[in-house]
């Protein structure tokens, strides 16, 4: 059972790493923050699987922290002042 859990965790990790590499090469900042969000959700899933597979329940707390920080990162992105060039175009 544990080896199956490790297999699934590495599959999700490979999926998300591949997605991140492709998305981070795009120019738009929104795509990048979405990639960070993807890493947040996927990272939580990987950490939960590892917590069960290694029977180390504190890893669940790490997953909680990751979920929290992914949300904070996006809030910081949205609250960031708009690009001045873009604002000038609109005015």
């Amino acid at each position, binding site marked *: 059972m544990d080896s199956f859990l490790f297999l699934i965790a590495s599959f999700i990790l490979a999926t998300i790493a591949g997605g991140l590499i492709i998305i981070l090469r795009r120019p738009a900042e929104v795509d990048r923050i979405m990639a960070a969000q993807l890493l947040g959700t996927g990272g939580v899933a990987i950490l939960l699987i590892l917590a069960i597979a290694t029977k180390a329940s504190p890893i669940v707390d790490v997953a909680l922290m990751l979920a929290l920080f992914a949300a904070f990162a996006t809030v910081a*992105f949205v609250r960031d002042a708009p690009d001045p060039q873009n604002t000038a175009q609109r005015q």
Partner: protein
Amino acid sequence: MKRMEFALDLFTVFTLTAGALFFLAGTVGLIRFPDPLTRLHALTKVDNVGLGLVVVGLIPQADGWVGAFKLVIVWLLVQLSGAIVTQLIAGAIRERGPSV
């Protein structure tokens, strides 16, 4: 008792596989969809379903009720933050234009 454990293990294998496939689908959608709002759609819905399936699959393997309850709590937090974050990103796209 042995048969019960086998059934629970089988349940875990099925749900975790489905969850991993949902993660794959979400990532492919995020890469392939044409504009930011549809990509947001792929990111926040499909991945949360994947995480939900992973959590449901892990509950039979968790140590006792407290461990299972904690897994569900983590999932609920991710759901809540995912819903809020989607609205925030969509608002930012609307305000600053899709190419930001």
